């Protein structure tokens, strides 16, 4: 795509280990008050790692007419929908345009797999899965899109993107296309990923989890801290007073390896370059970069190489994953929300837990929250399989 017309973000919300709703998430991020704690989740309590767990998720009640959808992922999805009057905003958007014209594009990496994990642990004597287990409305990747559309009453374009950690950033790109080509008049985008044994044990087997709270870009960093989160935004072609604007987006593939990034950050650079190009902005017009910044040795160094190559070494950058944890398929929307609030308040959250910046990283990593120009900011999300997405936000169209 050569150009993207500005897309209005009329409403947004986020729920993570930092709290329910935009306000506690941004406030705690600015204060450097991390939501990470020692892992005590189910059978993963034996793992020596820190996580961003949200309390009381399992107490959320799914409406009885949607009970087949009941699983941790959808309880978290519903908990997040109930914050910041987002349900009201979404429903009034649907009323304004008509339900058939409002799309739902969600992102998730593991969907309701926790439900399947529990079902496999409860096989009956003939090896069958239990009667209470329903695959399609819980585990299936498409389930979260259908669940959210059902709660909201949206009847337009509905898909669930699943590209690992870039999922809920790519939802913005997909929505921009659907809006620009008028398949939808508004799109509710979002992401949700909830704690499960698959990711806790899976990342551990790849030796990608840290035994201390993650410290992205630090010389001693040694892995991620997994978190769970959910968030949403409403995107429209125009709006009189939106919260912010999506000005550009870039997507690319590393074409290198399934679980390690391109060593020179080639895909990352292509994604950021495309975000700038579609927004018709120059690197010097970017006031802040919210890094993907997972805390792995490979990601942080390759990402920062790409950032410095493209944007230079002066622009303030930070990863917020040491505050929320790495929320996997939800990190795109979580970090979009924090990036937008950074612009709205002209103050970017710091890269919490940074003690000594890795000398091989030349980017300007801000350790504490820092004032920024209220102009434009980039948010990066990169996933397994080399899937990259970079989003460019601004306060004016």
């Amino acid at each position, binding site marked *: *795509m*050569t150009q993207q017309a500005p897309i209005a973000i009329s409403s947004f919300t986020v729920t993570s280990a930092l709290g329910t709703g935009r306000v506690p998430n941004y406030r705690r991020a600015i204060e450097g008050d991390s939501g990470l704690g020692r892992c005590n989740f189910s*059978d993963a309590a034996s793992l020596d790692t820190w996580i961003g767990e949200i309390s009381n998720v399992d107490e959320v009640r799914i409406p009885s007419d949607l009970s087949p959808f009941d699983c941790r992922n959808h309880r978290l999805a519903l908990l997040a929908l109930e914050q910041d009057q987002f349900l009201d905003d979404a429903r009034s958007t649907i009323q304004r345009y008509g339900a*058939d014209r409002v799309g739902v594009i969600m992102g998730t*990496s593991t969907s309701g*797999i926790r439900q*399947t*994990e529990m079902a*496999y*642990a409860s*096989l009956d004597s003939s*090896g*069958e*899965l239990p009667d209470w287990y*329903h*695959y*399609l409305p819980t585990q*299936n*990747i*498409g389930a979260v899109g*259908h669940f959210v559309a059902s709660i909201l009453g949206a*009847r*337009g*374009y*509905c*898909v*669930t*993107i*699943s*590209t*690992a950690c870039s999922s809920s950033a790519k939802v913005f790109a*997909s929505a921009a*296309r*659907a809006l*620009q*080509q008028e*398949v939808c008049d508004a799109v509710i985008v979002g992401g949700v990923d909830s704690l499960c*044994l*698959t990711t806790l*044990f*899976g*990342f551990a*087997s*790849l030796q990608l989890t840290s035994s201390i709270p993650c410290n992205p870009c630090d010389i001693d960093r040694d892995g991620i801290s997994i978190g769970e989160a959910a968030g949403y935004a409403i995107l429209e072609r125009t709006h009189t007073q939106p919260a912010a604007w999506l000005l550009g987006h870039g*997507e*690319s*593939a*590393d*074409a*290198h*390896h*399934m*679980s390690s990034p391109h060593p020179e950050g*080639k*895909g990352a650079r292509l994604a950021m370059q495309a975000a700038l190009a579609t927004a018709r902005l120059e690197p010097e017009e970017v006031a802040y970069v919210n890094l993907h910044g997972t805390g792995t040795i490979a990601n942080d160094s390759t990402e920062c190489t790409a950032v410095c190559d493209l944007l230079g070494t002066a622009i303030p950058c930070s990863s917020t994953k040491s505050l929320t944890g790495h929320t996997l398929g939800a990190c795109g929307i979580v970090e979009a929300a924090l990036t937008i609030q950074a612009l709205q308040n002209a103050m970017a959250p710091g890269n919490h837990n940074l003690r000594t910046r890795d000398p091989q990283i030349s980017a300007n990593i801000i350790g504490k929250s820092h004032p920024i120009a209220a102009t434009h900011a980039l948010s990066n999300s990169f*996933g*397994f*399989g*080399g*899937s990259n997405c970079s989003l460019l936000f601004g306060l004016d169209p």
Partner: protein
Amino acid sequence: MKVGIQVVALYTPCVPDWYHCMEVIAGRAAIVVDQTNERYQPASLPRNERRRATNSTRLAFRLCEQVQNHASSNMADIPTVFASSGGDYDVIHKICSALSLDEKFISPTDFHNSVHNAPAGYWSIASQSHAPSTSFSAGDATFPMALVEASLLCNAEQCSTLLVAYDIPPPQPLRTKRPIEEPFGIALLLDPESKAGESKVVLDIVLGAAVSIDSQPHRRVANVALSNPIARCLPLMGAIADEHDAEIQFAGTPGVKVKVTHG
């Protein structure tokens, strides 16, 4: 929303490629009854990866390589949409089985293969393509939504775009809960509307109000892969294979209607 069709690929054991599908629809060939069920060996994967490739990746590659063999131009740097309702059921089964044991050992390879975009990732590595790629699911609506997503991407990027839609059968005990009995997949190499005039077949895709029933497939493929949600494409594939213009509809909320015109 219009796209032109450059190349079609299709696979299910009883109709192993698109050419065969066209012959079946034309009444010149029969559905394959005695299927060999040999594991497909993806030619474009390096030997080690080829040996370890999952059934889901093998099916996706079979389709991509079928397209590649018929495409007139290089497939590198082509944006892709990989659509699967359930992704890699075999790996999910392996992981959840392993997690039900005390050791809870997940192999690193199984873990990175469990992401829904694993086949897309492998394809981008095999084709050395840095172009954008999306992987998604819409449950049983995956195929009609894939047509929409791929057309949107094709027209946004203004270049040839590859759509791959596929589903494999789950192993037991998952299969009882997700009864898909055979693999099925299709791939379409699409051209944007600006170039659609050069295509033999043009699709005009409209997403709108709910539709209550799918169009009927051609009677000669009416019983093919009935339990596989991607086989919902068969009425459309029949209209593409046939030489008459047609309007095909896909049930759902939203519904999708596709006008097929032959140039």
